């Protein structure tokens, strides 16, 4: 019985197929139902397609203006929500004049009732022109359809075209209104397609090298990309284009000139890698830089591709020398701790094995908000027998999983964090991180350290007042905490 109807789902039995317990005798393609509509009235953690395109894909680009064509809410909510830091460095060596421009501003059309009645295209056009006036330094303007503009039928492509001609800079429309598709995943797809169709192949890089790559699906959450960039550059590889962490609009325009694409987040960005391969013949490989093992493996693969094997080994060796003792320490502390990974997309499969193999933890459940079939296949292949795999869990399921699987730690988002706490379980933010970056060798140490901190935070031993404490409670000491930092290594690699 690999599919499981949780107690809390008795009234919504359609959830049964989304909840799967890994069993060795199942056929490989037996995985949770996924990428389907959420049950109305359940407390899903999913967001909408607009969040997928602006929040995930385009929000990381450093030099473009975002004009959200919506009533005020979508614009407000689209404001700098993710940890996507950027440098001001532009491909031509100049500096973009506004620091963290992508985090600092969001623009919108603030649609009113009359706009809904009479259409909002004129207002959008005016807004785009004003946006350009306000921020003439921006390289391009991106505009977004939303539920309202989708429903009233505003033609954003037409407005973008007009405005683009008038302003002489590129204006790109993203048509991913909130209601389209079952989750934010639809927005990723629209973002990929739109950027591919409108940008890729429209400009040429200032210079090229034989080692040019596109780093795709890496958004520089809390500085992840900067770590990977360092490794690749040390190996002699040039990041011709990033998609879209710390990237500029123009970089995307010349992605067709890379020798190879590396696809990091395979949920949100394989689309564009496929399209580029198809149209321009640039091959791609899927890469994984979470954990020391995956990171090393993938650097080797890349090194091999470019004949830079030795360089890859050097990077790996230098980093491992630094992180190995720390990982050893954290492993000794995290050994046997039960973890429930509830990621947005692929982190559930990126992390499940490394946490087990490199840190000795036990992955008792994995879940994802918006993964697709391929993601769940990977997830399943990387967890051990008996692990729970859930698609789009809702909050009651979340509670039941905690009750039944008794995790020592949950990796999830801020919406889930405080519910977990109320139930007495530490919860680490895995979407935008706590003290990241979490990628690469040093990042994996950061992750281990944050998990360690969360599990060993003394507060978890003091949850309840004790009328009659154990004899000597106030003087005796718990073995656990007295030992915990005994061999604690010096802090290293911490950015915060």
């Amino acid at each position, binding site marked *: 019985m690999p599919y499981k109807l949780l107690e809390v789902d008795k009234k919504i039995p359609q959830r049964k197929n989304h909840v799967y317990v890994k069993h060795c005798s199942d056929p490989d393609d037996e995985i949770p139902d996924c990428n389907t509509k959420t049950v*109305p009235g359940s407390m899903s953690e999913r967001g909408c397609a607009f969040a997928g395109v602006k929040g995930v894909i385009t929000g990381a680009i450093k030099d473009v203006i975002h004009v959200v064509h919506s009533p005020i809410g979508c614009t407000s909510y689209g404001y700098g929500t993710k940890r996507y830091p950027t440098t001001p460095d532009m491909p031509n060596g100049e500096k973009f004049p506004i620091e963290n421009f992508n985090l600092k501003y969001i623009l919108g059309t603030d649609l009113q*009732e009359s706009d809904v009645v009479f259409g909002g295209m004129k207002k959008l056009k005016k807004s785009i022109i004003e946006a350009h006036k306000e921020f003439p330094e921006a390289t391009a303007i991106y505009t977004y359809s939303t539920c309202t503009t989708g429903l009233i039928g505003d033609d954003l492509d037409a407005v973008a075209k007009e405005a683009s001609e008038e302003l002489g800079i590129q204006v790109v429309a993203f048509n991913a209104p*909130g209601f389209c598709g079952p989750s934010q995943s639809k927005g990723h797809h629209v973002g990929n397609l739109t950027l591919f169709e409108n940008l890729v192949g429209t400009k040429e890089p200032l210079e090229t090298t034989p080692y040019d790559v596109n780093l795709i699906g890496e958004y520089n959450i809390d500085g992840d990309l900067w770590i990977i960039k360092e490794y690749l550059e040390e190996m002699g590889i040039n990041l011709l284009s990033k998609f879209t962490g710390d990237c500029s609009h123009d970089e995307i325009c010349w992605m067709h000139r890379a020798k190879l694409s590396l696809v990091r987040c395979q949920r949100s960005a394989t689309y564009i890698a496929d399209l580029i391969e198809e149209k321009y013949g640039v091959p791609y490989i899927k890469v994984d830089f979470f954990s020391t093992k995956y990171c090393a493996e993938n650097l080797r693969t890349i090194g091999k591709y470019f004949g830079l094997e030795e360089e890859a080994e050097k990077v790996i060796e230098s980093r491992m020398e630094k992180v190995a003792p720390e990982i050893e320490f954290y492993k000794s502390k995290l050994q046997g701790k039960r973890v429930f990974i509830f990621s947005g997309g692929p982190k559930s499969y990126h992390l499940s094995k490394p946490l087990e193999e490199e840190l000795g933890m036990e992955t008792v459940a994995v879940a994802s908000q918006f993964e697709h079939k391929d993601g769940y296949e990977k997830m399943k292949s990387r967890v051990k027998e008996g692990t729970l795999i859930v698609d789009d869990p809702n909050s009651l399921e979340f509670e039941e999983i905690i009750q039944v699987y008794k995790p020592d730690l949950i990796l999830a988002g801020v919406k889930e964090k*405080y519910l977990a706490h109320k139930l007495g379980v530490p919860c680490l933010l895995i979407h935008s991180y706590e003290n990241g970056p979490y990628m690469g060798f040093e990042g994996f140490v950061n992750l281990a350290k944050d998990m360690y901190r969360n599990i060993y935070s003394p507060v978890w031993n003091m949850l309840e007042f004790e009328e009659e404490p154990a004899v000597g409670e106030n003087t005796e000491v718990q073995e656990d905490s007295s030992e915990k930092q005994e061999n604690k290594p010096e802090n290293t690699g911490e950015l915060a």
Partner: protein
Amino acid sequence: MSCVNVIEKDRNVIINPLKTCQPLGAMFAVTGINKGFPIVHGSQGCSAFVRYGFARHFREPSEIAVTALHEDAAVFGGRTNLVSGIENLALRFDPDVIGIITTCSSEIIGDDVYGFADTARGNLKEKLGEAADKIEIIPINTPSFVESHYKGYDNAINALVNHLARKDEPNEKVNIIPGIINPGDIRELKHMLASMDTDGIFLTDISDPFDAPLRPSKTKEIPYYPKGGTTIDELRDSANSLGTVSICKYAGSGATSLEREHKVPSAIETPPIGIQNTDQFVRNVSKFTGNSVSEELLDERGMLVDSMADNAARYLYGRKVAIYGDPDLTTGMARFVGELGMEPTMVCTGVKYPDFNPDMEKISKESGSDIDVLYGQDLRAVEVYLKENPVDLLIGNSDGRLIALDLDIPLIRMGFPVYDRVGYQRQSVLGYRGGLYLMDLITNTVLEKYYEPTHWKLQQ
């Protein structure tokens, strides 16, 4: 004469908004009900973004359901989604109140949420029998493209009152419409009422739901919900109170309805921030209840006065302050800033309410400070203004933090959301004690920024 200069938005595009859409206000209102659940009739983002926003400000979970409208609903309407959503929610969460909150989508599609609610009620009756009767299902119209989150809050409170308030035996209570404020603020209001021997009915009360203790042994699980919130009995009983004080001038519809329908007198005012506004609140409660102000409150007032006498002239006088945010908090804060002898030289609010500018006129006269009112504006307007017109302090929510950083002006965090510092949701800016908190915060910020460079001045 000091004067007010109203500066309206001179562009179409909005840049870094100081408002959001109606549904948020309604979700906030319904969360303040004991076993009350909002169900948003819209896309998943409509609940996800708000839950995210609540989580990072209040640092609490919030259970908000959504009907998850998709393309098919755009074509065929959202009936199935809403009816099944209500049922799923009711069957799994044992709610007392379900607030149906519409959005841009459901309003544009033209869904008959009242009819759908009836259908859902019928279905539940079939499934649950009598037990279904205790579940109040209340539609709240909150089209996102009309006004702002304030209107949504006002609509929600009004819908709750209209739906639930029932005339019965008079009680000795005072209804309070708190506006969109923090748990700490509501706790301070409760303290003030208690000090005046008065029971309040909060319409509604998010203090416990958005600031709950972590006590696993006492926690209600599956479904989790926090204790507290206004009970449905209290909501019903609001028709029988001695009066209603709305300390949110821009969300007084509920108070007006109770006055019109049930003869409950009302007072609709600026929130009790600073001395004079708190005095006015105390007088209003006193007027409705006949209870005189307690010595305890007068002592708290005296402590605020004491500290103002100490700090205002010495550290704060004449400093220029820019304030942005919701219209009620900014109005209250601007007056308090004037009471501290500072000059509220710029006040910006993202919405437009006819009372706002006259209030600013009054504060300008009282404080002797010219005020540039950025009316119905956004944070970009604040930034552009400040580049030309520097101030000593900025007061507003965390969304202004990068502006403050770039302009090197200290930001006093107030309002919603505050996500880059901790604990603000537990503090009160209301009441005399809230005044002390604010004054300490402001003064210490001034000392740190403007006195520390000549640190001997802090030697005393």
